[in-house]
């Protein structure tokens, strides 16, 4: 491949104009002893045809969920991605643009982000949000740092039912800052609220919960609301945005900051990225938000216009005193979410959420009827649930794979105590036939 348009003649002409004899001379500032005299060991160039062949072959070594049936979730889901999203996100005016620093030539991106911000606020029930963060894990971390700017105490409590990768990420973010992170144990797949209540002390500035949690279950929000009355701690809730089509928004149970991963909203699984993270909060804490924010204003002629705003929080102005170091975010993935929400709309969004709920409950019930399997039903769940068995989960998944099914998550890989537990996710894409097949295989495993 070669994307350079210059002819040999033009190169000579340009060198002459600059007043140097050859290209090498342009690099005279690079000391001799570090200048490379030989080519890098990266082989020759390849044609477009060769490129397509090679990558096609590599891609085929992956088992993909377009051909196989997947029951994996845990923060990354096989939801349906409407074709219109690819079409719009592949418009070069969106994907080959930079950050919209120049509002006059970026109204498309800016208005789309403003609409994205509105969608996130509607779904979460919060007042404001930013233009996106990297992913759910980094969004949780940014939320905790933000909470600490609002309340400068030293300890944050995180439920063990929060995604384990998110907890690991958060502890990485906190360790250099000497902030304490206490993990609150679970009691049968939901947070032990009594334990949480006991652990809140004078030193605590925030609590992090996930709803539905990593195991798919919905925490006891009424109880949480009660124990937080009169407590000066910030409640940070991590959500699956799809669940908000059916489950009350975190604003209802008095969340201060709502975060999550936006993969479900029109983004592919892509081996875990790119997706995007979101962070929404109350108006009061606008100045504490990390990341870019788009606002609506007017132009010189009084017409509606959009621009990046409240930028004095950001690194390019505040430098070491910025609310965060974030610069590039996940704009195009957030754009996909805006298109996704537009396409589904008021009815579609609810319908997707309902389908996830109904189908997951259908499968859970069927599995629970089997002798060697049981499903935990004591807490409500949305689209994921835990299956307990005496059998080796890895072995089950190997058998499923032979039948073109990608089984649930082996919980033992995250928690040794949950060795014989599988986390199963059911999206709107799963059919009765596919679920019945899974149940049939489960039933016939010895």
């Amino acid at each position: 491949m070669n994307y350079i348009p210059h002819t040999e003649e033009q190169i000579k002409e340009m060198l002459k104009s600059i007043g140097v004899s050859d290209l090498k001379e342009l690099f005279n500032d690079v000391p001799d002893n570090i200048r490379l005299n030989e080519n890098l060991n990266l082989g020759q160039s390849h044609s477009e045809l060769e490129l397509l062949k090679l990558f096609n072959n590599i891609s085929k070594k992956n088992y993909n969920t377009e051909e196989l049936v997947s029951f994996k979730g845990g923060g990354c889901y096989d939801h349906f991605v409407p074709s219109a999203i690819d079409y719009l996100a592949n418009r070069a005016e969106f994907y080959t643009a930079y950050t919209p620093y120049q509002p006059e030539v970026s109204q498309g991106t800016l208005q789309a982000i403003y609409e994205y911000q509105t969608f996130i606020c509607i779904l979460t029930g919060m007042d404001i949000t930013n233009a996106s963060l990297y992913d759910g894990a980094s969004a949780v971390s940014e939320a905790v740092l933000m909470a600490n700017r609002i309340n400068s105490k030293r300890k944050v409590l995180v439920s063990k039912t929060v995604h384990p990768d998110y907890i690991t990420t958060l502890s990485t973010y906190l360790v250099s800052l000497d902030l304490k992170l206490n993990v609150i144990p679970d009691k049968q797949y939901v947070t032990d609220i009594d334990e949480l209540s006991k652990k809140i002390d004078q030193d605590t500035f925030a609590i992090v919960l996930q709803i539905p949690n990593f195991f798919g279950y919905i925490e006891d929000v009424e109880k949480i609301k009660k124990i937080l009355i009169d407590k000066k701690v910030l409640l940070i809730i991590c959500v699956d945005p799809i669940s908000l089509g059916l489950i009350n928004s975190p604003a209802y149970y008095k969340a201060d900051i709502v975060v999550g991963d936006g993969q479900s909203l029109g983004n592919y699984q892509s081996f875990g990225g790119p997706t995007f993270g979101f962070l929404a909060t109350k108006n009061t804490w606008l100045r504490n938000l990390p990341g870019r924010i788009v606002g609506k204003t007017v132009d010189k002629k009084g017409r509606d216009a959009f621009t990046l705003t409240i930028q004095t929080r950001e690194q390019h102005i505040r430098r070491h005193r910025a609310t965060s170091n974030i610069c590039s975010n996940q704009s195009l993935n957030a754009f996909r979410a805006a298109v996704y929400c537009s396409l589904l709309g008021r009815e579609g969004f609810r319908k997707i959420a309902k389908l996830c709920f109904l189908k997951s409950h259908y499968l859970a019930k069927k599995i629970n009827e089997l002798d060697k399997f049981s499903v935990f039903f004591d807490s409500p769940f949305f689209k994921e649930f835990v299956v307990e068995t005496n059998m080796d989960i890895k072995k089950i998944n190997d058998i499923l794979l032979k039948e073109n099914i990608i089984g649930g998550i082996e919980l033992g890989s995250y928690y040794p105590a949950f060795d014989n537990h599988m986390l199963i996710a059911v999206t709107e894409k799963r059919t009765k036939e596919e679920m019945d097949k899974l149940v049939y295989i489960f039933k016939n495993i010895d």
Partner: protein
Amino acid sequence: MEKDKLIFDKGRKGRIGVSLPECDIKEINISEHLPGHLIRKDIKDMPSLNELEVIRHYTKLSQRNFSIDTNFYPLGSCTMKYNPKVHEKIASFSGFTDIHPLQSEDTVQGALEIIWKLEEALCEITGMKKFTFQPSAGAHGELTAMFIVDKYFKNKNDYRKKVLVPDSSHGTNPASANMCGFIVEEVKTNFEGGIDLADLKEKINDTVACLMLTNPNTLGLFEKDILKVQDIVHKKGALLYYDGANLNALLGKAKPGDMGFDIVHLNLHKTFSTPHGGGGPGSGPVGVVEELIEFLPVPLIDKKNGKFVFNYKVNNSIGKVRAFYGNFGVLVKAYAYIYGLGAEGLKQIANISVLNANYILNKLEKVYNCKYNRNCMHELVLSALKQKNKGINALDIAKRLIDYGIHPPTMYFPLIVKEALMIEPTETESKETLDYFINVMIKIAKEAENNPELLHNAPHNTFVSRVDEVKAAREPNLRWYPGK
């Protein structure tokens, strides 16, 4: 004609933009399985549109953007080069888009192979020994690197609290260091536009953990004293960090590892041509020398008996900086780029990007001010000081460029150059485009003399004119509300 409406002002209740499958199982009563207080009755503020309405809305919005595919985009420090289309096609293969991060290793050998091979290539390009691909953007890479630096010293019971950055550094450098609890101190730039060695010597001591450096620096100049710098830094036991924003100029020409850097971050969305998506997704992999491998985030990718595997046994790992393995979709495109170009092609990027920048510099240095009288690398920083005397500032010039169909350069950065215009043409722009740009810049300089009002009011033909940023900040309107 309908104009300027938000998506929320369009559509009509009852419409839907996607056809969903009917429920093929017997419906159950949701309220039997979900307590009443948890059930959301409606999301009534969501719009209801059909597919055409959505397509038309966002297609129209797209037409209000400048982009690489439509305009010359010489945005300094951002390396806005052409984004090859074959990469988009490759990255959209379902074998890359439709794979779950927690599938068993056997079922994602292709994905691991891509990461492994990209890692090999980046090690060769930079002289580092091992990379992590978790960081999702340049700043995220910087932060990851700071966590590693912090842990490296704590592991030696050597508690260092300071990080040095040049006064010309990107804002993300001090911000990243601060997020990791470091105190940031600035090192001055000398008269030649390089780091001031005397000032560095004065500021470095055994409380300094790291010096963060961009090379070529943000003035578009190569740090000629880099070997002396690395010596000064390492003698005090500190680490040298490479901000890879400007690696484009050095591909195949010199390796950060050979310059003495211990830890680097790269911007795949700059140097390796992955599109910037209107602000992301990017990818900011971090590479380290042998001594720092044990601190990298988990998992690393290893190769055992011809099979690619995850390695979670990293002794002193900092943990994780996000879930899973990073922006994989971006990695696919970056590797395709490197594989397609090969060694010769990569070197030619450095050659031509530097040629293009110097060609512009040579033609414009008499019309605009240039603080340092040196050949530049892949980008040049001009100053509108001459024009400032006539009441024209860098902003006016930048906005006037829009009228000629050119995206403005980076403005007012680096902070040490007054009225700065930072221009990075990249290697994919033709001589004809550069000549057009040069002529426009000369023309604008004349306009600044003869018709300053033309510049003050620019741009003239865009969908909106200059926006009221004061109003935006004083009366924040950050979302739509029903009925407003």
